[in-house]
């Protein structure tokens, strides 16, 4: 039993990308404050990206994260091409969409099988789990391996990809390789369906519902978008432009900690697969819609653990959509245009696997960056995680510290946070 006014620290949280700790303080009224501490030491990426030539920016930005590096590259490319007034041709846009979808699948599968699933089965890790559940472990590994292979064919490499650059692609995959990729994707369809069913049937560790959560994602007419956004929307139906988002998303200093939390128009938002699903599920690929209708999934997810189910649905969607793209793409049009420096500024907002990712740059007339601002999904979600913990765990003060701590860790992992990314979320401006 636990007395009032006690404090819980989770210690270094495992099975998430990056390093973090959570501090929770109980008082007589329940939880008094929650502080998600990101321990990843300051990485100074926004400082390192300053003064860099525009072509090198996406390559350096990739190194922000070892798992969603593709998203950082893509966001940087979108912003820089906008500044330079360049719009790639249709086929280049499609290949970028395909590559991005593959990156989404890769991230989701790694999270679902390597990081999240041991929670549901009560193991420390996937290797331990293989003693009793070899079928599940092998399915996850085969899935991830196939996707890594596809990623390396289109992107040149799974981690810190090579081909997607400012101006287009340095190299297009061959017709034969694209045929092989389509076959491989088709071979994953059954596994993707089993993955979804598996996650639907798993018993959640506990209910994780916070009433009134506001979900935000990018939008694009009649599609379930990940890149090339028209703007940002919420589940309340508000729509704002990318520029408005960059102005209205503000960080406030927490009253009880040195850290900052981000809010959109003063409100805490939740981003990620669960947000995208809640906002745009009607635009999922027809085959994905068909499958979710058959297994009987609701149109709105209220429980944060359902983020995992939303990820499994997105895996199905991304497979179907990528097959569609690759069956119709004209590879002869894939090329790299030479672009010349131009002064200006632009904001790109894309859906990284974990939610809204914003890259904002200003270039001088020589094509070098003079302003850099990066907002990552995990930085956005920290405020949501803190509110969730307050509302979900306040009534649980009678449980032991270790049970509360391990449950908080499970909730945190459902968000699939990436702390390497969020640890440098600081604005920089240097006038020279």
């Amino acid at each position: 039993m636990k007395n009032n006014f006690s404090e819980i620290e989770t210690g270094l949280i495992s099975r998430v990308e990056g390093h973090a700790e959570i501090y929770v303080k109980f008082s007589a009224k329940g939880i008094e404050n929650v502080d998600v501490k990101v321990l990843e030491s300051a990485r100074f990426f926004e400082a390192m990206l300053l003064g860099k030539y525009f072509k090198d920016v996406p390559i350096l930005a990739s190194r922000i994260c070892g798992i969603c590096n593709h998203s950082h590259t893509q966001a940087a490319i979108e912003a820089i091409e906008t500044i330079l007034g360049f719009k790639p041709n249709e086929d280049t846009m499609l290949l970028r969409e395909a590559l991005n979808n593959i990156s989404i699948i890769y991230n989701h599968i790694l999270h679902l099988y390597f990081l999240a699933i041991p929670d549901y089965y009560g193991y420390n890790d996937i290797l331990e789990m293989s003693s009793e559940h070899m079928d599940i472990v092998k399915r996850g590994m085969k899935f991830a391996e196939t996707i890594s292979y596809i990623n390396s064919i289109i992107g040149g490499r799974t981690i810190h990809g090579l081909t997607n650059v400012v101006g287009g692609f340095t190299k297009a995959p061959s017709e034969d390789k694209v045929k092989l990729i389509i076959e491989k994707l088709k071979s994953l369809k059954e596994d993707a369906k089993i993955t979804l069913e598996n996650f639907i049937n798993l018993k959640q560790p506990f209910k994780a519902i916070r009433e009134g959560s506001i979900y935000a994602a990018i939008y694009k007419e009649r599609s379930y978008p990940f890149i090339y956004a028209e703007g940002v929307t919420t589940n309340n139906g508000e729509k704002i432009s990318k520029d408005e988002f960059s102005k209205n998303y503000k960080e406030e200093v927490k009253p009880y900690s040195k850290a900052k939390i981000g809010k959109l128009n003063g409100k805490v938002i939740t981003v990620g697969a669960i947000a995208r699903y809640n906002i745009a599920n009607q635009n999922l690929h027809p085959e994905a819609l068909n499958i979710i209708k058959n297994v009987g999934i609701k149109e709105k997810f209220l429980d944060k653990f359902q983020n995992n189910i939303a990820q499994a649905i997105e895996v199905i969607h991304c497979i179907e959509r990528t097959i569609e793209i690759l069956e119709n793409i004209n590879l002869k049009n894939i090329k790299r245009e030479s672009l010349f420096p131009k002064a200006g500024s632009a904001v790109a907002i894309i859906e990284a696997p974990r939610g809204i990712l914003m890259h904002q740059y200003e270039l001088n007339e020589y094509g070098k960056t003079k302003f850099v601002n990066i907002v990552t999904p995990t930085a956005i979600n920290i405020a949501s995680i803190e509110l969730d913990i307050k509302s979900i765990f306040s009534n649980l003060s009678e449980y032991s510290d270790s049970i509360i701590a391990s449950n908080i860790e499970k909730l945190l992992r459902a968000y699939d946070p990436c702390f390497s990314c969020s640890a440098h979320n600081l604005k920089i401006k240097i006038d020279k």
Partner: protein
Amino acid sequence: MEKLKIGFLSLTGCEGCEFVILQLYEKLLKISKRIEIVSFRLISSKKYQGQFDVFFIDGSITTKDEEKFVKEMRNRSKILVAIGSCATDGGVNIIRNIMNDPNSIKSVYKSEFLEEVNKETKPLDSIVKIDYKLPGCPINIEELEYFIKNIIVKKKPKERIINYTVCNDCISKGIECVTKKGIFCAGPLTKGGCGAICPSFGVPCFGCRGPSINLKKNNLKELIKQRVENGGIVFAQG
């Protein structure tokens, strides 16, 4: 016979090298039959306080805590291995050292951050003795496999000795030289063995495997500094 105990942890970096380890996929299952992975925070909740036979560290040293941790792991490990550019050569983080005008960094970052962060980011061997290095951003999976196989089979790891540059990789694979297009390429200065993966996709080398062993380091330092000051990027210090 008792299994060898191995562990992994990352310092300041993107953790991409740990994701390369995961890319061994089913081989990981086989490996874990022969050696015991007792600590791997990225994928496991297991806690382990004992001694390691082999411990792998990725990321570079940026804080006092990381310095302490590396010293502790040196004492707790028979063999300490640096994996990835950040750990072996400082990685992209060295761009900060080169740009290190303390006033500009202070003017843009909150001061509370700076209390915890060292002025310069450092590779592991600037603090402790490192037994083996697997370079690259990210590491090369074949090199990793070769290294781990040697731990399992011979109980003694082996590092490939590479006395040639990335140019040799390009030539042996018949890859068109990217410098012909007027692009800066660090290949002639960089330790080979990567199969020239970047040039093979039309991208120049950024030097992620560190300087080739025949280079005069002082000249290289100046070159790297100039390159970064001109808006370019490099992944290793001279």
